[in-house]
């Protein structure tokens, strides 16, 4: 139960951070990506703020033997740069620029009930399932 509460509380704070930072407004995202137009650099500050805090806390927290509520840390260990990473990030970036949403802000902003964000959210879930199907029948063959 406390694990569920920890996840809920972390995500609540995360979502509020996204909202305060302006990440839930597609116009701000597209403004940040619009380097050939009227560039809005404020999202650089969001990244800097988040990374400044998390890089220090990550270093401190992972000095512990284990997290407080579970037996061990589950942190990705891969370091290889493979084609899936690059192609996936290219596709994600294209979608980010096209709609102005990444996954977290889209979920937060869906509460507004706006047509664009709801269409985006449903399509994003469909994209996750499409990958699941592709992974099962295409990518896994011979790889």
């Amino acid at each position, binding site marked *: 139960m406390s694990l*569920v509460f920890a996840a809920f509380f972390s995500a609540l704070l995360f979502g509020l951070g996204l909202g305060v930072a302006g990440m839930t407004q597609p116009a701000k995202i597209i403004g940040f990506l619009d380097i050939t137009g009227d560039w809005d650099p404020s999202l650089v*500050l969001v990244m800097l*703020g988040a990374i400044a805090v998390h890089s220090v806390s990550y270093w401190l927290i992972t000095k512990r033997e284990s997290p407080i509520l579970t037996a061990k840390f589950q942190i990705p260990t891969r370091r290889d740069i493979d084609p899936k990473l690059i192609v*996936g990030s290219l*596709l994600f970036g294209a979608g980010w620029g096209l709609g102005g949403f990444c*996954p977290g802000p889209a979920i937060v902003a869906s509460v507004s009930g706006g047509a664009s964000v709801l269409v985006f959210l449903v399509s994003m879930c469909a994209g996750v399932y499409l990958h699941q199907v592709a992974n099962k029948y295409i990518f896994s063959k011979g790889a």
Partner: protein
Amino acid sequence: MDFDAYILPLFGGVLIGLSASFLLLLKGRIFGVSGILAGVLIPKKSDTSWRVAALGGLVAAGALLLVFRPEALALADHGPAWRYIAAGLLVGFGTQLGSGCTSGHGVCGISRLSPRSIVATLTFIAAGMVTVALLRAGGFPL
């Protein structure tokens, strides 16, 4: 200092960094929204409840914003539905193929100096910039 232009983005970023730290300290997991979402859409074993709670927390944050700071949820409903359908499909598929999004790669991964996350973040930002430049060049509304 322009409060809205500088202080709020920085403060929002600090909140994001803190919340990812809470999840790491308590649960030992990376705060990656695309991974959490996929774990709910395609449930595995008994590892689903905390992910559902995390999605619930994001929705609750949206509700609080809607009440106390509705301008944070201002949408730009421009362009036809195909644009948001294509965007959603690309983001859903791409984040799964690339193992992460802005939170997992951009914040958590860069914070621990993961080479994969640094490359992924530079790649998706560059792809986003090219996409917006193409939309602008093609005369689409931004």
